């Protein structure tokens, strides 16, 4: 996916959320008939964010429309206009149209006609008093009023023989960048003089590209010198101020104020500003948010695409493999320092893995909520009456695990509805409620999530299961006799099992799918009373994108990150009895993977070569087949196999077999 496309996706999902919020606020205003300052601020902030987001991906028209809406709301905030019902209706219409725009963007449709409609709406909003007032306001100088504290400062400055100037500046920058110019100006000016007051007063209120400062300097030249160095300064004007003009009696002030106060307050103000800029540049969002609280709240949560989360997750998976490789290398070298560093490294990698895992957790509710409808459909299909209840939806699981539990859980529900729940007539005869019930509950135990599916159908008779398993040749009679009650039920999950009447087939696929997740599946049944299926799955798992390859008759997994490319091999060049492969106009060494692994390498012709990079040199290894890419769950091998050369771990394939994860570069001589 291109960066543009990715940005576009982020824009679409975020815009959707923002617009929904706008609609929500306006709806509320409509219903309650009250407009709080907070909701106006929130609307303002949303359009501001939308404006910025649209500009980033080059949707200039959208951006400028949002800018105009922002202006409208700004004038509301300043009390220059009132949001009447008409305005709200129009804003609501605009929000709905904007949401159409977003859909069109997603479908790559034409957004211009909708934008035109929005523009008309905005125009009609713009008409009225705000136009003249709002625009005219910008060129008239702002009146500056000093607080008592500022008056003290000014008085002090005059007493020290400084001259007071009022400075009005206009910058030729985008308003979004104005915060930085504002900060630079304040910073620069405070080097040459003492700033009594600045308007806007703080960074959050920087909106237009204009600012005014009341400053005390030793001489005018200092001021002019400082202004020369200000970036993007379009124009400026200054007027000398007399304290009397500002209503200050200097004599009186001096006697009242302490001399150090002003210095200190400038420093603390600066410190505050620096801190604020740091905060803002970190978020780069909502620069105009008026309430610091709002922006702090925003900091606590950020949006991350599932895709980048997956990438992060895979990277951590790789890191875990590297860690185990490092550990095995360290075992060969008796270096206490190395071991010490490795211990810390291992701990950090584990913590990192833990944190990333936690990021991927999603509540089971996302799966559970779709199940009642699914079971209704099944009931219809098999002419049964079944209700499904669930609890524990708040239990969180790794997204990947959740995705992979859907299939087996649905399969299990189908088996239950099809084979265990009786038709209503029979249920009534048995004295059961006419409607069958399935209850799913989830609980968490340590690092495992336990999903229990309980149903009140016929269930399974252990004797019948045992008898049938023997009959089908799935188990040896002597072994079957030694099995515990729990183990007997597991016979029903063997491939090929079904009762005489064909019921309860397919449980093997449920078990297999759960086991491939590193989980376990158990059944316990009391005929006609209660049957319980227990699914135990790990909360999360380390996955890795790998290429599955075939060598002789075995399947191995090779992490994609280790592979430069895979090529089909027609012929090899031989130089000094060494096999070489022509790759990118170069001859690179090629080895038979079987030889490297020390296994049967009698097969003389393998069709594919995996090119890997080791110490910035390419080499290739021959394999029989490339079976395709898969996200595999990395599992550690036991301590008895911890330091096997070339083996980085193992995974369980869909068919239940163990597949080794190869670390090819460590095998290459």
């Amino acid at each position: 996916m291109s960066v543009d496309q990715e940005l576009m996706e982020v824009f679409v999902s975020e815009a959707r959320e923002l617009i929904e919020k706008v609609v929500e606020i306006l709806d509320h205003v409509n219903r309650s008939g009250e407009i709080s300052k907070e909701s106006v601020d929130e609307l303002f902030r949303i359009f501001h964010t939308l404006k910025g987001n649209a500009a980033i991906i080059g949707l200039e028209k959208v951006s400028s429309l949002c800018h105009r809406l922002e202006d409208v709301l700004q004038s509301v905030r300043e009390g220059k206009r009132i949001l009447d019902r008409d305005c709200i209706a129009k804003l609501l219409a605009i929000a709905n149209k904007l949401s159409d725009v977003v859909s069109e963007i997603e479908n790559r449709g034409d957004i211009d006609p909708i934008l035109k409609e929005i523009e008309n709406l905005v125009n009609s909003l713009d008409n009225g008093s705000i136009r003249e007032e709002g625009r005219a306001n910008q060129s008239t100088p702002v009146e500056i009023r000093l607080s008592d504290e500022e008056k003290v400062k000014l008085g002090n400055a005059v007493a020290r023989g400084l001259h007071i100037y009022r400075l009005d500046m206009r910058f030729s920058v985008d308003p979004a960048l104005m915060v930085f110019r504002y900060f630079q100006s304040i910073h620069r000016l405070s080097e040459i003089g003492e700033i009594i007051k600045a308007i806007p007063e703080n960074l959050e209120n920087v909106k237009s590209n204009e600012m005014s400062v009341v400053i005390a300097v030793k001489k005018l030249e200092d001021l002019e010198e400082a202004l020369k160095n200000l970036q993007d300064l379009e124009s400026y004007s200054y007027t000398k101020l007399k304290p009397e003009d500002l209503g200050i009696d200097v004599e009186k002030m001096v006697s009242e104020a302490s001399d150090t106060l002003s210095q200190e307050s400038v420093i603390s103000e600066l410190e505050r500003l620096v801190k604020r800029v740091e905060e803002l540049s970190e978020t780069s969002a909502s620069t105009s948010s008026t309430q610091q609280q709002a922006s702090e709240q925003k900091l606590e949560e950020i949006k991350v695409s599932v895709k980048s989360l997956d990438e992060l997750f895979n990277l951590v998976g790789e890191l875990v493999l590297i860690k185990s490789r490092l550990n095995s290398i360290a075992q060969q070298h008796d270096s206490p320092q190395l071991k010490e560093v490795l211990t810390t490294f291992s701990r950090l990698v584990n913590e990192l893995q833990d944190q990333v895992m936690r990021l991927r957790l999603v509540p089971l509710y996302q799966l559970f909520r779709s199940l009642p409808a699914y079971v209704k459909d099944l009931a219809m299909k098999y002419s049964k009456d079944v209700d499904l209840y669930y609890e524990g939806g708040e239990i969180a699981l790794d997204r990947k695990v959740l995705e992979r539990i859907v299939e087996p859980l649905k399969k299990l529900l189908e088996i239950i509805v099809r084979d265990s729940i009786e038709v209503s007539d029979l249920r009534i005869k048995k004295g059961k409620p006419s409607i069958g019930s399935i209850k799913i509950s989830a609980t968490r135990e340590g690092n495992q999530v336990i999903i229990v599916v309980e149903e009140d159908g016929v269930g399974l008779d252990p004797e019948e299961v045992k008898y049938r398993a023997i009959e089908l040749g799935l188990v040896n009679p002597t072994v079957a006799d030694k099995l515990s009650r729990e183990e007997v039920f597991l016979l029903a999950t063997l491939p090929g099992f079904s009762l005489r009447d064909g019921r309860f087939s397919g449980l093997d696929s449920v078990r297999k799918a759960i086991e491939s997740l590193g989980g376990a599946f158990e059944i316990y049944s009391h005929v006609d009373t209660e049957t319980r299926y227990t699914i135990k799955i790990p909360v999360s798992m380390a996955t890795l994108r790998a290429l599955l390859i075939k060598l002789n008759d075995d399947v191995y997994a090779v992490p994609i990150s280790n592979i430069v490319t895979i090529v089909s091999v027609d012929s090899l060049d031989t130089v000094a009895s060494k096999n070489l492969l022509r790759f990118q106009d170069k001859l690179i060494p090629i080895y038979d993977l079987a030889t490297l692994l020390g296994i049967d390498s009698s097969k003389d012709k393998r069709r594919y070569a995996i090119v890997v990079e080791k110490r910035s040199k390419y080499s290739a290894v021959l394999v029989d087949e490339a079976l395709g890419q898969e996200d595999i769950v990395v599992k550690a091998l036991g301590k008895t196999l911890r330091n096997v050369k070339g083996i980085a771990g193992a995974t369980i394939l869909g068919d239940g077999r163990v597949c080794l994860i190869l670390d090819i570069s460590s095998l290459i001589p």
Partner: protein
Amino acid sequence: MEIEFLVFRIGDELWAIEVRRVREVVKVRSVTFVPNVPPYIVGVFNLRGQIVTLVSLAKIIGIDGSDSGDKAIVVEDSEEPLALAISDVLGVVRVDQSMLIPPPQEASELISALFRSDGKIVAVLDVDKLYEVLVRS
């Protein structure tokens, strides 16, 4: 005091493991071969989602004849299970502690004791020692 032992056969020899160390007896289906390992490691297999190493007791101890059945005894220590390929499981016997005979000096370090059952000598496998040997090599 009586101790319970699971008695099994490897080739023609009778061996036993304390029952409390046995997790289960399994039938091993597809074993994945692991390259670059000592010959007594048969491979790894999937035991309900856990990857377990299967070792050949016959090869470790140096017993002729095969253990090429598909049965394995799964034992465990505090960290992980380990599957031991065996020829057949014979059953559980109770042996009084006083009946245990210390192994002769020249015997394998893996034998912790011997006892008689139905007139035959049964060697008791030292599971901890086995783990130790496997990790060491």
